């Protein structure tokens, strides 16, 4: 805009504020002799007058009006109700042809010149809501004296709370009825209409027991008018129904569909517990609003009369809790999801609201091991009541402290935040033992939400909580929080934060087993970090390390090698040869070398790491154990079973029962079990693996991917011992857990299925075996396409089954496919060899010894 134009506008605006008589003089003065400018300002003022000078219009105060006879074609019969919004008349349309009973709502909005247009626009949108559960909007407009009115379908019935009491509905019947309500609300949401004022008096139940919702979108309509016209309706709170309002509504924040989810939660709470979550604030509106915005709603089971409390405890408490979270983002994402969870409860299935509860099991284990785990000095420890949550707190505090170190100036405030969090959390925890790690995370989230005006603080805290959740194996929530942190960093154009958070997202996805997705975000993180921090920054090296790990899981050992070497070089240059992180990078490189078959290089690398590690930190650190584990795994591979076994045993002996050491001790036990199998001691191997499995179950709950791994390992030992039935049980357990935790498309699931197929094949049930493998293959292809990792082996196994069933042609085509798949991967010598072996077996069975020999020879290469 030109400077001239800007000045003209400024004078015009200022002049508008003056009474008409004083404007001329002001313009002369302001334009100081610039005649053209003065002319422009005058022409704008003239044009403004032409528009009707809407800004100058004042809003007359609404007045109580006598009962009118008619509104247009509607004859008024009486008053149905009066409220903050206005008056509702009982009326009927009687134009000689048909009669129709209607409710006419005359809204108490100031006379806004734009009102008519608004009513018409909104009416059109609301009229699109065509659902038997929604009272239809029949007409709407502005009365002769300028007040908006809406004509709605007249509904016979009772408000849902009155109906439920009068019909003496039990909990189950109330839930079924409520589900119907939630589904109607969801219908409106899908049509982009938010109710904004859900409460029992708007939720009617008709005499035939169907729900009918009133006043959809009316609150929005009213709010819009009021905001535009400056009418007093929104200023006094009477238009809002605070008892059912969400925190964001009370704060005046942006409203979304989850606002209705909250109000639905309050209605359900009241239907089940007999009172609302925050009751007893009559006449104390400000305190009431504060409670809604800041306090956690008390458990419904604690409010309900005794016999019902028992029913509410547990799942229904959890469902209500999830619907009533103060942060919109933490509630059920839609009314439909809320309805589904209730239906899950009714069907006696596990409810979503409790699925964060792997943390319950975790909490139990850490309570058991907490005393030995109090090693790391952090803000939290001085506050910890001793048992229970202490270890978890240490973990959270460590994560947050790391974040704080990075955040520099923010660190003190972050520490303060955590101190407050724990102060609030610990006494309850130590008294009742009922506060779980997850509870504290949720509490932390609520508090973070209160920091919405301080994104600089919010983002790192969300990221830290995301890491904690990842360590609790709550990957979906961990990802969600990490993404929230990411959004905040993006909004602040904090590139270093964006890069770091993306890298964290990649790590979470790797842990969760989504390797391809993990790589995608890590590859996005890398250039961002390189630009923001410099290509030789240690954080860049960490991201490279993550990329290397992902590549290992994807079976792309070449890429893994490149990333690991680059990461190591950066760490060496930035931190020196003996730094903890440098040594971790070096260990990763050694692991890659082992996987690439470079056993000598791997041994040299890993021995170097082990030799340097004690200088870095104490000689019994978990990191040293991990180094030695990698070395032992390599030695086992190189045939040095005795030295490997010694290391495994030593690691087992040196690690205590603390959760800190859990991962290494478990890995050592697994390694030892492998050696025991090799030496033929199946019983000892089985015993060890069962121990691992049971410990993991206690630590992680029933559905962590680690559990699937130990179940299948156990299955393998049992299968080797010929105990088919027990092996089958183990593999089925493994498959179930894989499916529940990382999904059916994960390679682990496919492998468990393949072992089940092998069992069926051993039993001579070739058709069953074939269909299991076909299913597993289809899932892999659906997940990662025709070059999916592990596909070659599945195809080969299917070919094996085909050979046994005498389907030679089919077997041959499967093997060709398998070979093509294996060839597409850089390092699968073992798989390729097995494919050739299977070819050889096929051709021998087929009576083609020449071909068989050729493949047998190929296999030996």
């Amino acid at each position, binding site marked *: 805009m030109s400077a001239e134009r800007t000045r003209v506008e400024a004078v015009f605006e200022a002049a508008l504020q003056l009474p008409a008589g004083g404007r001329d003089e002001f313009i002369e003065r302001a334009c100081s002799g610039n005649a053209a400018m003065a002319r422009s300002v*005058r022409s704008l003022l*003239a044009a*403004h007058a032409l528009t009707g000078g809407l800004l100058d219009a004042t809003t007359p105060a609404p007045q109580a009006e006598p009962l009118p006879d008619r509104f247009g074609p509607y004859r008024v019969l009486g008053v149905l109700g009066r409220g903050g919004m206005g008056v509702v008349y009982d009326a009927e349309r009687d134009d000689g042809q048909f009669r129709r009973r209607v409710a006419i709502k005359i809204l108490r909005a100031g006379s806004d*010149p734009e009102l008519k247009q608004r009513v018409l*626009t909104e009416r059109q949108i609301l009229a699109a809501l065509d659902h038997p559960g929604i009272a239809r909007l029949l007409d709407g407009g502005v009365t002769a004296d300028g007040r908006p009115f809406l004509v709605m379908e007249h509904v016979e019935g009772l408000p849902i709370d009155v109906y439920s009491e009068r019909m003496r509905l039990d909990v189950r019947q109330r839930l079924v009825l409520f589900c119907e309500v939630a589904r109607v609300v969801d219908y409106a949401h899908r*049509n*982009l209409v938010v109710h904004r004022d859900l409460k029992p008096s708007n939720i009617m139940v008709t005499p035939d027991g169907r729900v009918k919702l009133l006043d959809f979108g009316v609150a929005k309509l009213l709010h*819009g008018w009021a905001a535009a016209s400056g009418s007093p309706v929104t200023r006094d709170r009477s238009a809002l129904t605070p008892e059912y309002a969400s925190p964001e509504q009370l704060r005046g924040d942006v409203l979304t569909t989850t606002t209705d989810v909250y109000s639905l939660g309050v209605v359900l709470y009241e239907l089940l517990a007999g009172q609302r979550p925050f009751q007893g604030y009559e006449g104390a509106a400000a305190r009431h609003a504060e409670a809604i915005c800041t306090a956690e709603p008390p458990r419904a089971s604690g409010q309900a009369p005794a016999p019902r409390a028992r029913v509410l405890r547990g799942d229904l408490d959890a469902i209500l809790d999830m619907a009533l979270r103060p942060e919109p983002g933490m509630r059920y994402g839609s009314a439909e999801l809320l309805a589904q969870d209730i239906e899950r409860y009714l069907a006696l299935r596990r409810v979503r609201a409790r699925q964060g509860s792997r943390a319950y099991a975790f909490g139990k284990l850490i309570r058991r091991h907490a005393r030995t785990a109090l090693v790391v000095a952090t803000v939290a420890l001085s506050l910890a009541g001793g048992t229970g949550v202490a270890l978890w707190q240490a973990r959270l505090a460590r994560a947050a402290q790391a974040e704080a170190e990075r955040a520099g100036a923010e660190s003190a405030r972050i520490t303060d935040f955590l101190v407050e969090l724990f102060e609030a959390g610990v006494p309850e925890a130590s008294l009742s033992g009922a506060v779980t790690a997850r509870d504290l995370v949720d509490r932390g989230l609520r508090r973070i939400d209160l920091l919405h005006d301080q994104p600089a603080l919010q983002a790192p805290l969300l990221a830290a909580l995301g890491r904690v959740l990842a360590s609790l194996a709550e990957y979906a929530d961990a990802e969600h929080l990490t993404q929230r942190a990411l*959004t905040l960093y993006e909004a602040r154009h904090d590139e270093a934060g964006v890069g770091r958070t993306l890298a964290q997202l990649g790590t979470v996805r790797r842990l969760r087993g989504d390797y391809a997705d993990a790589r995608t975000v890590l590859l996005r993180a890398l250039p961002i970090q390189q630009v923001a921090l410099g290509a030789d920054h240690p954080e860049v090296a960490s991201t490279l390390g993550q990329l290397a790990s992902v590549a290992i899981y994807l079976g792309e050992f070449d890429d893994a090698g490149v990333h690991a070497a680059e990461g190591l070089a950066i760490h060496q240059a930035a931190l020196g040869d003996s730094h903890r992180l440098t040594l971790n990078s070096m260990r990763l490189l050694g692991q890659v070398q082992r996987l690439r078959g470079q056993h000598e290089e791997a041994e040299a690398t890993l021995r170097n790491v082990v030799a340097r590690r004690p200088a870095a930190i104490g000689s019994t650190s978990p990191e040293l154990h991990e180094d030695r584990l990698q070395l032992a795994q390599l030695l086992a591979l190189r045939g040095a079973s005795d030295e490997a076994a010694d290391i495994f045993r030593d690691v087992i002996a040196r690690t205590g029962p603390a959760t800190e050491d859990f991962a290494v001790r478990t890995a050592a036990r697994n390694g030892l079990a492998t050696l025991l199998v090799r030496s033929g001691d199946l019983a000892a191997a089985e015993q060890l693996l069962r121990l691992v499995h049971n410990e993991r179950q206690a630590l992680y709950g029933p559905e962590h991917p680690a559990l699937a791994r130990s179940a299948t390992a156990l299955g393998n030992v049992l299968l080797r011992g010929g105990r088919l039935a027990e092996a089958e049980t183990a593999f089925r357990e493994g498959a179930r857990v894989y499916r529940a935790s990382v999904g059916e498309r994960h390679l682990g699931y496919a492998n468990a299925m393949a072992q089940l197929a092998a069992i069926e094949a051993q039993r001579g049930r070739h058709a069953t075996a074939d269909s299991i493998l076909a299913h597993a293959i289809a899932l892999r292809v659906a997940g990662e396409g025709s070059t999916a990792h592990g596909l070659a082996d599945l195809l080969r196994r299917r070919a094996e089954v085909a050979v046994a069933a005498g389907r030679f042609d089919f077997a041959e085509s499967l093997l060709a496919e398998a070979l093509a798949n294996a060839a597409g991967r850089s390092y699968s010598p073992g798989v390729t060899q097995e494919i050739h072996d299977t070819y050889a077996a096929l051709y021998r069975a087929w009576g083609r010894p020449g071909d068989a020999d050729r493949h047998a020879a190929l296999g030996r290469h």
Partner: protein
Amino acid sequence: MTGLRPDTEVAQLLAALRQGESSALEELLPHVYEELRALARAQVRGRGGTLQATALVHEAYMKLARAGAVVAGDRSHFLAIAARAMRQVVVDRARAALSQKRGGGWQAVTLQPDSVSLELRPEDAIALDRALEGLEPRQRLIVECRYFAGLDDAEIATVLGVTDRTVRREWVKARAWLYAELYGSADADEVQA
């Protein structure tokens, strides 16, 4: 994380728009334009009368929303874009009407800038279009949103990332410029007096 399905082009453009890339607005235009043109044809045919710009824009929105292309949180942004497209539709029809039979086939277009509705002749529609071009871009967007999509201050404020108050002030100025342009400054002294 409410938002759009990331796979639609419209969604990406809206996302870019939110991040302040105004060029995204231009890129989305053709999509919405086609939609509106089709709806306009149907509306004029069906009702044999006036083209209700605001109603049409909302109809287009409902249609795209049902198809999953836009969701609730993006309503205002979408409508802002649709308003621009609607303006295009109106001026195209006006041009065509003028060139064919000097306006013989023209169906009136109503716009609702305020309480009054504007019934446009084809000449008016073209003059309005030209006058809009003379506005500063932000003011132009505000006017388009109001005239062609019936958005209120709060909704426009969301689109622009400013306060309602700013929108209101800019609207008053923009409207004055427009009226001055459309109804001629020759009248100015008369009205003033």
